[in-house]
């Protein structure tokens, strides 16, 4: 008769002492890491802001005036160069002014690709060589419900597109921002923490891109564009929310299908492809009916197409702009 009964707990199920000590270590280390990371993030924000307006750059020569310019009061150089949304250089408004100082904008090349006859990598000087620069004083409306009046210097995007000789398959133009984690600390934030998917991409329908209001910009206040404002080469589409006006462009591609722009990719329920300024279509989290002009206390009523309806409303005739936000 077998008297010996098996023990309640088999020895194979008993956790080895070394292992459970390790487990404690692990929990302790994990907790320590979490606390350290949280302290780091919270500590970093305590630093006083050290935003600094951009140093003044080289004067641009032979700049024409434009009938498209507004006569509203300009925002100052200081405001335009310290209050920037340029997530490649951090998500605080002041970060781009501090972190983009050493961003290398020379030499700069732009790749032209896709459905066109003049596919090539162009030097920026060669692109600018046969363009006449114009002052374009535009209203700038951010999707965050603030606005500025900014004296850009640039030339019509349409003029550049014609030189690329797009084919009949080119239905959209897709733009890409430079992506360089070494120079752009903001791009090192992993998407798990809400970082965007890099590189930043934007797009326009071909007829939008050919509209004379859409410009490629190389200057501000008659001077070379400061880094925090998207130097050396950016897009400005004044009837759309600011994020459509992509900065530091390194690639222009003609495509048949509508591109997936970065903010739509980030949150499609909040940001669409068209992103026309529209006081009747609210952002899911805030109203777009009014805006604060930087430097003013009372808010202004936001204008349809940011006040550029006379030039662009016909592009969207028959379209449901509530659906195509």
């Amino acid at each position, binding site marked *: 008769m077998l008297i010996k009964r098996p023990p309640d707990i088999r020895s194979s199920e008993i956790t080895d002492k070394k292992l459970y000590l390790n487990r404690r270590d692990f929990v302790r280390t994990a907790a320590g890491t979490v*606390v350290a990371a949280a302290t780091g993030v*919270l500590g970093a924000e305590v630093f006083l802001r050290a935003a600094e307006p951009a140093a003044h750059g080289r004067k641009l020569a032979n700049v024409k005036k434009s009938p498209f310019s507004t006569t509203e009061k300009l925002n100052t150089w*200081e405001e335009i160069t310290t*209050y920037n949304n340029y997530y490649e250089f951090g998500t605080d*408004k002041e970060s781009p002014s501090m972190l983009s100082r050493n961003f290398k904008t020379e030499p700069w090349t732009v790749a032209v690709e896709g459905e066109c006859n003049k596919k090539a990598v162009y030097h920026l000087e060669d692109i600018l060589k046969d363009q006449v620069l114009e002052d374009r004083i535009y209203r700038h409306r951010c999707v965050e419900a603030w606005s500025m009046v900014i004296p850009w210097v640039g030339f019509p995007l349409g003029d550049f597109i014609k030189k690329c000789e797009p084919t009949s398959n080119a239905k959209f133009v897709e733009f890409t921002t430079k992506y360089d984690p070494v120079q752009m600390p903001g791009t090192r934030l992993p998407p798990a*923490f*809400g970082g965007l998917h890099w590189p930043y991409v934007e797009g326009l329908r071909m007829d939008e891109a050919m509209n004379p209001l859409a410009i490629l910009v190389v200057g501000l206040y008659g001077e070379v564009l400061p880094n925090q404002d998207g130097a050396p080469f950016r897009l400005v589409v004044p009837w759309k929310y600011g994020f459509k006006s992509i900065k530091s462009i390194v690639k222009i591609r003609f495509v048949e299908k509508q591109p997936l722009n970065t903010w739509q990719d980030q949150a499609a329920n909040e940001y669409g492809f068209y992103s026309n300024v529209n006081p009747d279509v609210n952002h899911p989290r805030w109203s777009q009916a009014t805006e604060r002009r*930087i430097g003013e*206390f009372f808010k202004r009523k936001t204008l349809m197409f940011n006040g550029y309806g006379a030039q662009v409303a016909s592009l969207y005739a028959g379209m449901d702009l509530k659906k195509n936000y």
Partner: protein
Amino acid sequence: MIRGARLLKAAVFLASLGPAAWLLWAALTGHLSANPLSDVTNETGIWTLRFLCITLSVTPLRRLTGWNAAIRFRRMIGLFAFFYGTLHLLTYVILDRFAGLDFPNGIVAWRTVRDLAVSVGKDVYQRPFITVGFTAFMSMVPLAATSTAGMVRRLGGRNWQLLHRLVYVSATAGVLHYWWQVKADVQRPVAYGIVVALLLVFRVVWARGYFRAAAPKGERVAASNPDRQRWGPGAVEAVKNVEPRKP
């Protein structure tokens, strides 16, 4: 000793006023960003959350270090959370709502008061992140109102303590308010979320008695006293007498 404690309390009071003083100075001397109105709103909000976190860490600090004197600062720090919360609400009402009104009858008019009330009410109702922010503030109001010694006596310690657990609601709603407000980069709201979660988890863990062996001697005695157990001595006996469950 008493004198030293008073001095320390005065120092904590002044330090707590620091952020408000700094903000006022920076706003008046142009040391804020190009959008100072939004800075004032953001800063007062973040300091509310910070003071809530400090208030919530007083109990864990006492439990873990045995430094019970820390309790003397808790009411003051909690009231500072309410102070910054009030500033935050006021900046929102004035800079965001009031500044966006139409004023068809001029600024000084009954119409303005009505329009402002409607504008705030609609916003609180329509925008989830404003709703939770408002919740966070409203759950601090009864705490501030019952913060005096007289109110503790009138309510009775137990009721008072129960009521003041509303601070957990306030801190949680505060983190959520921050989280839902940001556009993409959630690092900071997540960091505050972790801090608040740790402070709340500590309370749960402590209630279950995990850390007590590690606590200083005085605390350990208090914890092992059956009168201080959650269900009282009777419940403890009842549990002991229950037949062990069959596996």
